[in-house]
């Protein structure tokens, strides 16, 4: 394999692995802050135990999120040096702002929170977790503004053989990036909600700590319900935006080959990239794709054939990621509504509890699929319309990248296994006994 392919694989491994841990950090930090705020306001010890129990899981997850995040910053320089050189003026500064304005805050106050239970007043301790929650979400803002520039470059000018910053405000008010941010953050909150519901369900099925886990379940339920609806509604809007800004991605998402008005959407599709068609294409809903893309059944949707072959993303992967994301995304509000209806009679609904328990991995899949869609669908561009991924790779020796790719797979595999093992152990262990 050449350096390009190896570096792409390595980036995929590093990013997908990192992103297993990020959404839970984003969502659970807010949930912890809410739990601890309730403790401070009501003095009810259950909420303190809640913050501690869920906090422990949070920290096990957080550790891997942090350490695997360093990889991403390094990789732009090590593996994508041509890219770094070309857009560093803009992209690099967004990463640097993230470190200074958000990551410092998050890393400093997470330690304050962990070690501060006895050394700080209850209020100050609660402020610490709010700062962690705010900082991690702010972190996501800057990172996604940086990614948003790759998806939809704005505010730049080509000068001195590279993309230079022309208008900072345009870069930070990039609407496409903000929609990506909202989509990610809603997804992350939904994931945290389902995580809390699922683990609570496990305990409720065993009739352990019923009061504790009923309360936890309900907090998770509100998050899961609200954000599963928001992510779907806002996702549709974001899809419209993709149709306009990245038409090739949209066409690949739907494996849509021929440009047409009243474009239908097929429920069953199997792309055949080689022959530029779909080998299976069944159950079409007339005009639906035009509606989804432009809110208008008569709208013309450009097909893949109208893009030069070298400008098309990999169709099958893009298509499958999209279907997986949307399929699961449709399921979550239904599960959320079900949990909402039965929220007062959880113990009488073991089926709901069992389903919620098994649903824990699903939001993870949906979120990973979402990023796969965003990144693979953007190909062959590293910066949409501006720089090709093949022009971005470092001029380095493939053997080096082979070595590190293997190392990443081994180390990340081991760490992932240990993390899941510890999460399961501490999730099953349950909260500390209430003080008599």
């Amino acid at each position: 394999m050449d350096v390009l392919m190896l570096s792409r694989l390595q980036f995929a491994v590093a990013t997908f692995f990192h992103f297993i841990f990020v959404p839970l950090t984003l969502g659970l930090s807010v949930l912890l802050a809410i739990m601890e705020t309730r403790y401070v306001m009501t003095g009810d010890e259950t909420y303190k135990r809640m913050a501690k129990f869920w906090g422990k899981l949070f920290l096990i997850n957080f550790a891997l999120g942090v350490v695997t995040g360093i990889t991403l910053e390094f990789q732009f320089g090590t593996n994508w040096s041509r890219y770094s050189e070309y857009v560093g003026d803009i992209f690099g500064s967004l990463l640097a702002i993230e470190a200074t304005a958000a990551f410092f805050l998050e890393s400093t106050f997470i330690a304050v929170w962990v070690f501060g239970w006895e050394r700080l007043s209850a209020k100050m301790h609660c402020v610490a977790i709010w700062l962690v929650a705010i900082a991690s979400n702010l972190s996501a803002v800057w990172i996604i503004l940086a990614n948003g520039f790759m998806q939809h470059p704005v505010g730049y000018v080509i000068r001195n053989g590279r993309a230079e910053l022309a208008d900072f405000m345009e870069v930070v008010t990039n609407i496409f990036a903000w929609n990506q941010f909202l989509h990610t953050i809603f997804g992350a909150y939904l994931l945290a909600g389902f995580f809390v519901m699922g683990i609570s369900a496990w305990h409720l099925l065993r009739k352990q700590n019923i009061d504790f886990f009923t309360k936890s379940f309900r907090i998770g339920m509100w998050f899961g319900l609200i954000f599963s609806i928001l992510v779907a509604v806002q996702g549709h809007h974001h899809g419209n935006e993709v149709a306009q800004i990245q038409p090739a991605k949209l066409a690949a998402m739907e494996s849509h080959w021929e440009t047409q008005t009243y474009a239908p959407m097929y429920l069953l599709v199997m792309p055949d990239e080689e022959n530029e068609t779909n080998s299976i294409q069944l159950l079409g809903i007339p005009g639906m794709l035009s509606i989804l893309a432009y809110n208008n059944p008569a709208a013309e949707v450009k097909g893949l054939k109208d893009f030069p072959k070298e400008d098309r993303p990999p169709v099958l992967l893009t298509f499958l990621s999209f279907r997986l994301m949307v399929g699961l995304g449709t399921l979550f509000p239904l599960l959320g509504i079900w949990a909402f209806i039965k929220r007062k009679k959880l113990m009488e609904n073991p089926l709901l509890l069992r389903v919620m328990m098994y649903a824990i991995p699903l939001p993870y899949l949906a979120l990973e699929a979402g990023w796969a869609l965003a990144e693979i669908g953007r190909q062959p561009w590293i910066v949409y319309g501006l720089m090709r991924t093949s022009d971005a790779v470092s001029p380095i020796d493939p053997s080096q990248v082979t070595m590190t790719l293997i190392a990443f797979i081994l180390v990340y595999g081991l760490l992932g296994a240990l993390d899941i093992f510890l999460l399961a152990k501490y999730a099953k262990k349950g909260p500390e006994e209430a003080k008599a």
Partner: protein
Amino acid sequence: MLESTWFFLWGLLWAVYFMLDGFDLGAGTLMPFMAKNETEKRMMYNSVGPFWDGNEVWLIAAGGVTFAAFPKTYAVLFSGLYSALMLLLFALILRGVSFEFRSKIESKTWKGFFDLLQFLGSFLPALLLGVAFANIFMGIAIDANGVNQEGLFHLLNPYGLAGGVFFVVMFALHGALWIGIKTQGDIKLRAVRFAVGLWPVLACLTALFLAMSAGFTELFQNYIDMPVLFLVLLVPVGGLIMIRHFLGQINMLKAWISSAVFIVGVTFFGIIGLYPKLLPSTLDPAYSMTITNSSSSTLTLQIMLGVALVFVPIVILYQFWAYRTFGHVLEQKDLDHDEAY
């Protein structure tokens, strides 16, 4: 002017990173030699527990600022030192995990495994950072296309190795002093003894590194051109002497502060000597990465300067507050918390 400002801010970020992460890397390096039993190990882990993560962000910030202010240097440096940086990265990953995971299972094998990761994850970064910076001071074989023509092992030249050993000892002493501040009883006495033993080694290595710098690098050129700069050397030398002075009084905090001054002084000795280059080329001076040929646009540098001037002081304030809050001498009850490492 803007480029020069960023050059020295870049140096400052590295200096602060070495000063802060230096002591927790040093403590991790010393752990197998200094801690005699599980309680003492836990004291060492918990001495750095509330700080190591916040300290490491200075590395992210230093890397981020290299990317933002000098993107071409970032590109050439990170791809040119690919294997060394990846090794550093893996070491830091395994080390970070060892803090969080070690205490989670009551098993000797489990804890022993993470103790090993903690040691390697502390020792290797100290060594690699020293090797990397010595090679940056000396220059690497960058060609006209910004590609490093030499492999990983070329970094392990005599000067690079001297830099590596120098950093390991400098951080180890810094870490011993920190353990001395945070602990009491036997382990504190041992920390003091370690510091006293390491001091002459560090003094010799400092002299050796300065002497070798004259032979292997052009760091002294700026000093020769502008002799008043030699006064800057008084900072690390003074810091070094004050470490020994305060160690004699067993005033660990003041000795640690002196060590911090020493580390910042040493870093700035190199940074001043390097100016205006960020990464010299050993093939042809024209291929060197400098503040003029590798910097970002004026607009980016201006905006970033605004961001840095607002946020860095705030960061320093709240990190200082965190150090105040958790700077106390560890007691048994600190180890008994279920949140403790």
